[in-house]
């Protein structure tokens, strides 16, 4: 009984294209695209209130940037990604600023389908890697995994 309930819950999350961990919520709408055409996957990210995550483009080498990995396999060629502008977070007591994201934002990933891509709904794996801090703690880097459904017509 419990097992069926867990399966139901899991399927519910997948159906709405939303995956969450304790700090970040990822929303991924289904995508439609014509064979051989370009389209975009818009991943909506929501960072828990009072937290920030490091931005994708960072000034310091060892800070862990936010990255979005999308495994297009052989069917999809991943092109460029567009992240929002970072916010500046001042490290109090220093002249240093961190580039961060907080609240809700969107990451766009442009892709092209191959000419021989099968017309069907494809299941594409995505991963959001991030490192979060709030005012009293910095947490180990985390990864949130999710699925994207790409309907190739």
């Amino acid at each position, binding site marked *: 009984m419990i097992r069926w309930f867990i399966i139901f819950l899991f399927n519910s999350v997948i159906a709405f294209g939303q995956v969450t961990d304790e700090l970040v919520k990822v929303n991924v709408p289904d995508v439609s695209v014509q064979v051989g055409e370009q389209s975009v996957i818009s991943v909506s990210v929501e960072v828990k209130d009072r937290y920030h995550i490091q931005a994708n483009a960072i000034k310091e*080498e060892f800070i862990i940037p936010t990255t979005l990995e999308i495994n297009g396999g052989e069917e999809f060629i991943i092109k460029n990604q567009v992240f929002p502008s970072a916010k500046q977070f001042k*490290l*109090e*007591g220093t002249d*240093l600023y961190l580039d961060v994201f907080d609240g809700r934002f969107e990451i766009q990933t442009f892709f092209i389908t191959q000419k021989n891509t099968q017309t069907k709904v494809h299941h594409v794996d995505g991963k959001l890697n991030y490192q979060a*801090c709030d005012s*009293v*703690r910095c947490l*180990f880097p985390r990864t949130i995994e999710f699925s994207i459904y790409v309907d190739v017509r």
Partner: protein
Amino acid sequence: MKSILKNLAFTFSVMFSMPLHAQGVQPMLGQSAPPFALNALNGKAYSLEQLKGNYIVIHFATTWCPFCNAEAPNLEKLYKEYREKGVEVFIVDVNENKELVEKSFSRFNFSFPILLDADGKISASYAPEGVQPDLERKEVPIASNLIIDKEGKIRFYSLLNTTAFDAKLTQLKQKLDELIETGK
């Protein structure tokens, strides 16, 4: 009278629901520091037991922690300023591999040892009970600073508080001066 009691109850409930950081209250003060025996980047072994008789400053860090990196140059300054006064400084790197730690911290040219807490167990043992119970225990002390006195007791413990971030270690130095002056 009733309203006084009501106000007192409210004040206490607010006080005890606030995190320790926000209150500026330091945890574990006066307690014996949890023992450790760790290897430094250069392979040398250090233990709390062998360091007794010195003042020990410990900073828990990771290579990716922005607050740790911001504080790093000031730790080196502190070491140079206080080493003649019997103060030993250590960074305890939490849960990272040696190669990464070596590569990352080489830019700071530290003249004090960097200890490797590869599985995070030592860091976890320094996590104050009840503080941030939702976190893995080894995550809690990251970016914290401690002073352990000559007898192995914790005399200063500042958990990360980014709204009052003391990158220049002013409060830690004040406490060190006080301890050195009184010989405690």
